[in-house]
């Protein structure tokens, strides 16, 4: 499937680069619908890879790249079933999304996350699967999961640890604070900063550079430079699933979902 337009995602090949577009309003919350389309994307990758030398992931949402997991869906689904079944559902979701994330992480081509605005939680974790993050000046990153009594569950901690120092990981995780693109570049997460509204153009220009290189060499370099922390990723699922059964999580989700004030995304 070289082109696709779904409810949450679309993809196509533009000038030899695969472009995966996140397009679920309000801010690309990642729930079952997005997961299913991500799985379709991953299944289509062997065919897409034949015609594409790079992958660019970007968003058409005005608010940003992605606000992360769909907390409202998670809350409502877990309300509808018994505790044990809810926990099984969460584990199944995590295992499926890890398969998607691990596949993107290991793709035999250079991958670029072109982010703007809100790049939170699962959205940040998706960006971290990419080889290069390019961000516009509006980008803001955050792992807010501790506010909900959880840790990031889509592979965020092992991938963040792979890319930055442990002191930075502790700061970001344990405060749950959001940070801007200048900080993200300063700590080494973001490779290039684009002017507001220019991130896709900059990412496309970067992707076109990749076309000049031999693919076998790119793959060899990538495997050497970017090991995938499979053991820690599995460990993360276990920790998340253990925490998910704690009462603090239900309460944290309820507070977020029922918050009708203007500040649900502020700590």
């Amino acid at each position: 499937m070289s082109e696709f337009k779904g409810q949450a995602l679309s993809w196509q090949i533009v000038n030899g680069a695969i472009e995966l577009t996140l397009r679920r309003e309000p801010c690309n919350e990642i729930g079952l619908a997005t997961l299913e389309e991500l799985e379709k994307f991953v299944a289509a990758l062997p065919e897409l890879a034949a015609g594409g030398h790079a992958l660019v992931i970007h968003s058409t949402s005005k608010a940003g790249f992605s606000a992360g997991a769909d907390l409202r869906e998670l809350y409502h689904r877990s309300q509808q079933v018994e505790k044990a079944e809810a926990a099984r559902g969460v584990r199944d979701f995590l295992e499926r999304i890890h398969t998607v994330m691990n596949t993107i992480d290991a793709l035999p081509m250079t991958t670029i996350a072109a982010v703007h605005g809100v790049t939170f939680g699962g959205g940040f974790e998706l960006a971290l699967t990419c080889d290069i993050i390019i961000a516009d000046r509006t980008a803001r990153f955050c792992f807010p999961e501790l506010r909900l009594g959880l840790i990031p569950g889509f592979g965020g901690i092992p991938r963040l640890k792979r890319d930055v120092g442990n002191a930075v990981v502790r700061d970001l995780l344990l405060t749950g604070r959001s940070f801007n693109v200048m900080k993200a570049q300063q700590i080494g997460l973001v490779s290039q900063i684009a002017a507001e509204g220019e991130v896709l153009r900059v990412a496309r220009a970067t992707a076109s550079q990749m076309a000049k290189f031999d693919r076998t060499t790119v793959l060899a370099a990538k495997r050497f430079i970017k090991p995938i922390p499979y053991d820690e990723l599995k460990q993360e699922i276990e920790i998340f699933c253990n925490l998910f059964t704690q009462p603090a999580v239900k309460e944290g989700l309820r507070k977020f979902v029922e918050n009708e004030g203007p500040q649900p995304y502020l700590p």
Partner: protein
Amino acid sequence: MPTNDHTLDEILNLAATHFKVPREKLTPDDDFFKTLGIDSLQALDLLTRLEHHFRIELPDYELQGVSDFRTLAQRIQSRL
């Protein structure tokens, strides 16, 4: 270092320009969520723009419960 009043004035100017609200309609004690008609995601956008403008880093938890321009200016002033 700029005075608190100067910082406050710059915040009001930036908010008026970005959210396309007449500057004269904004006052220091306004609830900026209401006056600007913004939600928490837009408030984070405002925070990002203020951080760039003042070249500071202001953790968002310092904005917990802050909804007026005057207090926002004090938080920013403490980072200048």
